[in-house]
């Protein structure tokens, strides 16, 4: 529509409109400029630069020391030669990138469903005429705005050897008596727990908004047909919430792949490499080892993963919008 207006404008006698049009365009650019200059310099340029960096070998310093290596960085992070020799299992057990991918994937696969189930359950509960619903909603949402460093360090302390959580476990059966973040199997679970705890309130709010949009006559019709509570849930509520669930899960998957803060504060990627994530790996290579090319090629792996999910989301959104 906007496009057609523009072309219509151009089809009119040109000599008279050009100056007027040019002035209008200048005004439009003046609106755009303050944001666009900042955006172009600090976002667009770095994005393009990072694609370029993934093909060079560079330790920082002068630009002369940059060395074009083509796909060399990718071969290096995937250890293609070794993997070709020893099989794909080698990638996920020995290679940093494989381990980071595996950890991130594991974390995502557990965190996403857990968060969504908790969020949906809370939203369903609060959607009933509950006394104090606003207070409950505020409480559930609060962790999402609380600053990461404070809550993560608090959880880390609570999960220490003699902390309240192990005291609870000891009271129940007493088999676990280690600091969670120092144990190579429990460390990732501590991160999952904190993430679910933090995010469920946010997605609860999204579900609550979606539940408001479910038409009531669907429930009435279902009741007339003799559907019980559970059948109403599986045949009315769940299908009606499907677009929201889809949207929320892609958003959550993307944010899970970007996890860094919780890991940094709680485990520093350890013990060993047991909680090393993609972004932790990027950070280490970029700011500790100064392997700028390697760091950028790992960043591209992250980018591709995130873009795949974004594209899936876009295409499905179109599908839902058309239905």
């Amino acid at each position, binding site marked *: 529509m906007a496009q057609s207006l523009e072309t219509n404008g151009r089809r009119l006698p040109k000599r008279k409109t050009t100056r007027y049009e040019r002035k209008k365009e200048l005004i439009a650019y003046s609106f755009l400029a303050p944001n666009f200059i900042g955006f172009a310099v600090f976002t667009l340029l770095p994005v393009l*630069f990072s694609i370029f960096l993934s093909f060079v070998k560079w330790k920082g310093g002068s630009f002369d020391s940059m060395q074009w290596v083509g796909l060399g960085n990718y071969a290096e992070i995937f250890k293609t030669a070794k993997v070709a020799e020893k099989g794909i299992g080698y990638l996920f057990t020995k290679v940093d990138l494989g381990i980071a991918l595996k950890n991130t994937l594991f974390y995502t696969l557990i965190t996403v469903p857990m968060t969504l189930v908790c969020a949906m359950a809370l939203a369903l509960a609060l959607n009933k005429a509950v006394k104090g619903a606003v207070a409950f909603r505020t409480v559930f949402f609060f962790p999402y705005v609380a600053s990461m460093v404070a809550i993560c360090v608090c959880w880390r302390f609570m999960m220490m050897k003699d902390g309240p959580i192990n005291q609870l476990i000891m009271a129940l059966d007493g088999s676990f008596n280690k600091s969670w973040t120092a144990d190579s199997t429990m460390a990732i679970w501590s991160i999952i727990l904190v993430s679910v705890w933090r995010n469920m309130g946010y997605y609860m709010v999204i579900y609550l908004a979606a539940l*408001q949009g479910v038409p009531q006559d669907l429930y009435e019709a279902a009741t007339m047909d003799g559907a019980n509570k559970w059948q109403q849930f599986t045949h009315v509520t769940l299908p009606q919430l499907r677009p929201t669930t889809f949207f929320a899960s892609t958003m959550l998957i993307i944010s899970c792949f970007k996890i860094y803060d919780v890991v940094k504060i709680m485990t520093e990627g350890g013990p060993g490499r047991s909680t090393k994530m993609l972004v932790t790996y990027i950070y280490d290579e970029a700011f500790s080892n100064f392997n700028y090319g390697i760091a950028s090629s790992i*960043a591209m792996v992250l980018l591709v993963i995130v873009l795949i999910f974004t594209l899936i989301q876009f295409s499905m959104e179109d599908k839902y919008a058309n239905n």
Partner: protein
Amino acid sequence: MSQIAQSNAGGIRPNHPALAVVGRVLLYIVLIAVALFTLIPFVWMLSASLKLDREVFSYPIRWIPEIFHWENYSLIWSKVPLLNYFKNTALIAILVTCIQTLTSSFAAYAFAKLQFRGRNTLFICYVATIAVPWQTYMLPQFILMRSMGLYDTLWAIVVLQSFSAFGVFLMRQFYQGIPTELCEAARIDGLSEYGIWARIMLPLSRAAIATLVIFTFVGTWNDYMGPMIYLTRDVNKTVQVGLQRFIQENSSDYHLIMAVSVCSLLPVSIVFLSLQKYFIQGIATTGLKG
């Protein structure tokens, strides 16, 4: 809305009133249990911050300290330049929020209501970068900022946060909902484009601006990775990285760490509790900013 809720609850079969009561009670028990689970870290944090160092991990756990050691809170001010951290963070958060809201509502007006060449291409650029995680380009951004002499200055964080594509996107969506006829009418009445933006668009977009302001402010206040990369001198640190530094340097002073943590949570908690309605509305309508 309460009607909706009522009819939902009516799903429990009316011929089992006892069952309905049991269901209600269970519902409240579950809600209260989850609320406790949500709040327990904060309670524990507060409780630990009022204890002595050796009491923090006492067995069995004491939720209410024997003696309230309020002096922990006076002690931390001499150990850590918390006030300075607060000042830096507030400065960054306020600057970012102002620049972000102003420039993005400005740009969004052009995208939504003005005609110019390259409009669609430019907008696609904006939308595409929303999908690009910051972590993928933080390194080139860092190299760039360092070469501009912004490393270890508050300005680095300000420019890093201020020009997000998300703000433009959000405001544009909102402006598109405002009828173009309003702008046309104003143009005929002789208002310039700047006048239309200031007198018509801004006042009409209060809800969107409130959302943007809140999320920018909280996001900037809680941002950890950016300040961690850029700010190294103690005078420049924000609350988050300052707290992290304090944790690293006093790793076994659990009570003091918790006291500093409580302090670091206070400002955002106050903002959230007083504006929580807008938070909820903002998420419900935009659903973005994951």
